[in-house]
């Protein structure tokens, strides 16, 4: 009697539930993890000791009281900022250069009313590249890139860009796929050529979304810069890892402070920049 056309959806929900339960089971049984062991007095003691360490309680010269350290951290902060901007730039340029053939409605000719024999071929190649690039986490890209480039902000930027290239490419391609094709087709029927179509039909409609996505990825990249630094790709992250190894907790506090400053600044700037987009 019921005719919900949800069989696949329902099956997916059950599959996901099963997966989650199975995962918990395998972690709790397989790895002998126990939640009750987590909240012991001992853990409380070490946790509070750790946070006292971060705050520099009982320390004669916490790092955040030293001007030298502030200067160092500031330099690293600028480095990190530059790295994030560079990474966003590289990723955006690469994505823009490849995005047109990656849109389904360009490949099948329905957007521009012009079908090309290589449409699906270039679609497949570019989309495959996107998947490859975004499936590999930034950190893994960084671990590989650091073999080739000297430590510094460039390998960090490249690793971040490699990952975000695939994400931006996919997002951009979807924007083009979601475009209302009617204005573009009408332009075509009033005599616009291919490039004119892109300039007058696609770009004005897609640019706001493109810009939104670029800013959004920049925010994400900002958060991730610290992580690529862990493997030696420069910026705050690298110093963070060193301080962790040497148990210099107050240094970490200072670095975390600057990291959060960067992240919130990026959020704020991109929020303000959206005024330009609306």
């Amino acid at each position, binding site marked *: 009697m019921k005719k919900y056309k949800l069989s696949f959806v329902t099956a997916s929900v059950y599959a996901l539930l099963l997966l989650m339960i199975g995962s918990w089971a395998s972690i709790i049984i397989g790895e002998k993890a126990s939640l009750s062991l987590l909240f012991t*007095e*001992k853990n409380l003691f070490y946790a*509070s000791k750790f946070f006292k360490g971060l705050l520099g309680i009982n320390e004669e*010269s916490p790092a955040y009281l030293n001007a030298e350290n502030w200067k160092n951290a500031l330099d690293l902060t600028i480095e990190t900022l530059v790295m994030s901007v560079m990474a966003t730039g590289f990723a955006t340029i690469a994505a823009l250069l490849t995005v047109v053939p990656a849109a389904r409605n360009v490949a099948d000719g329905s957007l521009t009313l012009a079908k090309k024999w290589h449409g699906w071929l270039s679609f497949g190649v570019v989309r495959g590249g996107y998947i490859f690039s975004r499936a590999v986490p930034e950190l893994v890209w960084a671990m590989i890139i650091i073999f080739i480039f*000297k*430590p510094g902000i460039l390998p960090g930027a490249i690793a971040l860009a490699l990952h975000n290239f695939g994400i931006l490419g996919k997002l951009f391609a979807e924007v083009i796929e979601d475009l209302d094709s009617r204005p573009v087709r009408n332009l075509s029927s009033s005599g616009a050529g291919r490039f004119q179509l892109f300039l007058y039909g696609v770009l004005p409609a897609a640019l706001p979304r493109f810009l939104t996505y670029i800013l959004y990825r920049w925010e994400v990249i900002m958060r991730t810069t610290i992580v690529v630094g862990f493997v030696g790709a420069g910026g705050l992250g690298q110093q963070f890892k060193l301080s*962790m*190894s040497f*148990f210099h907790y107050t240094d970490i506090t200072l670095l975390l402070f600057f990291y959060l400053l960067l992240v919130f600044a990026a959020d704020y700037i991109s929020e303000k920049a959206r005024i330009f987009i609306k």
Partner: protein
Amino acid sequence: SDNGTDEGQKDTITETIKIGAIPDQNAADLNRSMEDFAKDLEEKTGLNVEYVPSVDYSALVTAFERGEIQLAWFGGLTGVQARNLVPEAEAFAQRPIDEKFKSVFIASSDVNIDGLEDLKGKSFTFGSESSTSGHLMPRYFMMEAGIDADQDLDGKPNYSGSHDKTYKLVESGAFQTGALNISVWEAAVKEGKVDESKVKVIYTTPEYYDYNWTLNKMDAETKATLKEAILSMTSEDNEIMELLQTDKFIETKNENYEAIEKVAKQLKIIK
């Protein structure tokens, strides 16, 4: 809250002795050898022994501090860090070579270089940043030779993470020069793991104290049993001896490592 720690400590002691080692070389080899070592120790002492692998040097030190590891194979610097955090801990055994340990500086054979002074302007890799023989002492001797590792090299120095990786990176040409633990180096040469036509040793450092077995705070009886078992081990007993290139362990004491602590303080690694 101090009471709380002791309680936690007792619990784990009566159950199992957890042992760990700094992951300073090939992880697969290390894990296999340590498993074997744990089994042997279990037989010798009648205690329940379990090996816990560590991801990096500092993770082991933290675990030691928290009492999650009772017996650990530390490097000179990590040992000092650990004993600073747990004053009752005691370094009690080391290999004979650890009394007069050395690091080697290596370079790619196509690089024209004779001594430490020539490192200026070359690309360079340390091992782990927490390593004594792969970072602390090499950096110290570089400083003595008038080279600031953070300023004078070609770019910032790299931290490869382990000694194996250091010589492999130099061999592959990824870095022109590097510094590592002499025993890992000699083992690699002996086993033909490294191609000597591609890498050469350019400098060997003076001697210093390095690796050691350190015991966490625990009751005296267990302590004695463990000490006894380790100090009486011979090269046939388990695979760790082969991996560590030794046929026995000899006694040592915390005071032997005061020099390292001084160097670490001088380099601002320990505050």
